[in-house]
């Protein structure tokens, strides 16, 4: 007998024992454009149906009309909390297709940027989990260090959120002194802030009660759902693209891959914190390696690929050959070699893959983005069924669902 059977409904009333609730598409608790049609029995979730696509922008179709370098700004808008990783992932895909070997210094500079992006992404995710469990302070407090990271991007590429950072073959310009000064400041100050941030939550009884045992997924189910990244690692599987398929010279670095055991909200939160520590040590290591370059090597910031890398502006105005390359690149008149390539990077959310098919024309014949967020959002119902609605909100945050990435 269910708990509702004893209730006598008045004549003519609808005999529905559950409540339908539209969570989203625009609700402050969902941190993005998500719609969940929840079927609730009291406060317990009976079923959840997700509607995605509210901000679908047809990037894969757009990419079929664009030369490679014009695709980079599209990738910015996938997971916009860590755009530089998407940008680098795309450059690395192109370089794989074009057989371009990037200099070590470029790889290390890229790693610095990608790990900064990972920190800023995890920072947002973890502090939002705090907000959703009733602690706003952490979120506001760490914002200033995301700001500092954005300022570093700004010094390098001129923009902050949708960065379009780097080029095929390297960076558009060398890192300037201010960028390194800001990096010094970040490396000096951030560890204490992170320590304080973790201290605020880690042994907080309310936070523990809200996150431990909620939104859990087993390693087996996570793998079957094609989970990757921190969400898979929180369930106990130590899969990390940086280790399994190293790119951008990650093989030169030693770092730990933190894993959880239960795959619940608390473990996901913990894994992300640990990854921030690892990222910090990778950045420090890469920074030291960058400083070790001497003489002309210390000025290298791109590979020598005139077909894809824009020449210096000064040369464009004074040298015929540079002018021609400039024109050909900007107008997209360079045919890319035919081939198909799958390349992936460890995005802040998991394996961000690019499946690029070229038929030898000037634009990709087909480009598909493997968006980790899109893939694991479908497990949301399974992860929240039977749980309280307020726990589902925390689960939504701790999965780090980003609408831009899901909807492509």
């Amino acid at each position: 007998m269910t708990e509702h059977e004893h209730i006598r409904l008045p004549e003519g009333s609808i005999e529905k024992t559950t409540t339908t609730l539209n969570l989203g598409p625009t609700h402050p608790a969902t941190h993005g454009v998500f719609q969940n049609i929840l079927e609730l029995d009291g406060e317990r979730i009976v079923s959840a149906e997700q509607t995605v696509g509210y901000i679908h922008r047809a990037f894969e179709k757009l990419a079929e009309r664009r030369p490679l370098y014009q695709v980079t700004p599209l990738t910015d808008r996938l997971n916009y909390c860590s755009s530089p990783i998407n940008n680098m992932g795309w450059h690395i895909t192109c370089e794989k297709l074009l057989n371009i070997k990037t200099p070590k210094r470029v790889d290390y500079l890229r790693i610095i940027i990608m790990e900064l992006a990972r920190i800023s992404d995890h920072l947002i995710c973890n502090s939002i989990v705090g907000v959703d469990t009733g602690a706003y302070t952490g979120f506001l407090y760490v914002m200033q260090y995301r700001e500092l990271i954005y300022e570093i991007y700004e010094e390098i590429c001129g923009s902050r959120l949708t960065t379009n950072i780097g080029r095929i073959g390297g960076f558009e310009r060398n890192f300037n002194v201010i960028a390194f000064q800001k990096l010094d400041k970040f490396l000096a100050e951030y560890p204490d802030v992170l320590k304080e941030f973790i201290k605020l939550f880690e042994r907080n009884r309310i936070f523990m009660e809200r996150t431990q045992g909620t939104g859990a997924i087993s390693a087996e189910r996570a793998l079957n759902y094609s989970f990757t990244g921190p969400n898979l690692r929180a369930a106990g599987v130590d899969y990390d693209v940086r280790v399994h398929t190293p790119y951008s010279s990650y093989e030169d670095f030693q770092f730990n891959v933190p894993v959880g055991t239960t795959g619940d909200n608390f473990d996901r939160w913990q894994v992300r914190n640990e990854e921030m520590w690892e990222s910090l040590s990778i950045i420090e290591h890469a920074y030291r390696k960058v400083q070790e370059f001497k003489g002309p090597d210390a000025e290298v910031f791109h590979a020598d690929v005139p077909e894809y890398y824009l020449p210096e502006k000064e040369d464009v105005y004074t040298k015929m050959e540079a002018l021609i390359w400039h024109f050909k690149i900007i107008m997209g008149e360079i045919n890319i070699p035919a081939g198909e390539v799958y390349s992936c990077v460890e995005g802040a959310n998991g394996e961000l893959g690019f499946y690029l098919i070229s038929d030898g024309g000037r634009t990709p014949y087909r480009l598909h983005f493997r968006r980790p967020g899109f893939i694991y959002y479908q497990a949301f119902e399974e992860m929240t069924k039977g749980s309280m609605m307020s726990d589902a909100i925390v689960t939504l945050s701790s999965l780090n669902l980003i609408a831009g990435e899901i909807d492509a």
Partner: protein
Amino acid sequence: MTMALTNEIVKEKLVAKFGEQVTAFAEPYGMLTFEAPKELNLKVLNFLYDDEELKFRFLTDLQAVHYPEDKGRELAVVYHLHNLIDNVRIRFKVFTDISRPDVYTATGLFSGANWMERETYDFFGVNFVGHPNLKRILNVDEMDYFPLRKEYPLEDQTRIDKDDEMFGRG
């Protein structure tokens, strides 16, 4: 200690099992790629999953490609699979006639295939037979075409204010 899994071993095992039905072996940029008739897609996926040596139990990605010139096999459904233990990736393709784009669903094997197949249906119109909930996912439900097919150009072809003739793409 067993031998590490290589592309050659995967290929040998596939050929031993399916004979001449697995074709077009290639290794673009090091990733073993092959084809099978679409009727066999689940048999191949199951074999790759269950075989104690192969263990391709992680579905990295699933999507389609449209080749309008390739009559009778206009749509390719491409599976990227990963053996996480030996760290080997492979790419498996099945082709289908666009007028009968029926391909068996992989959702029975991989829960993660659910939305990937919905997305593929949404953009290419591949009909995944047996899928529990095959409906549009990113586009609006009212849409009556499959936008990533090549016959739908990105730009309005009736525009006359743009002349691309000079750039080899008139």
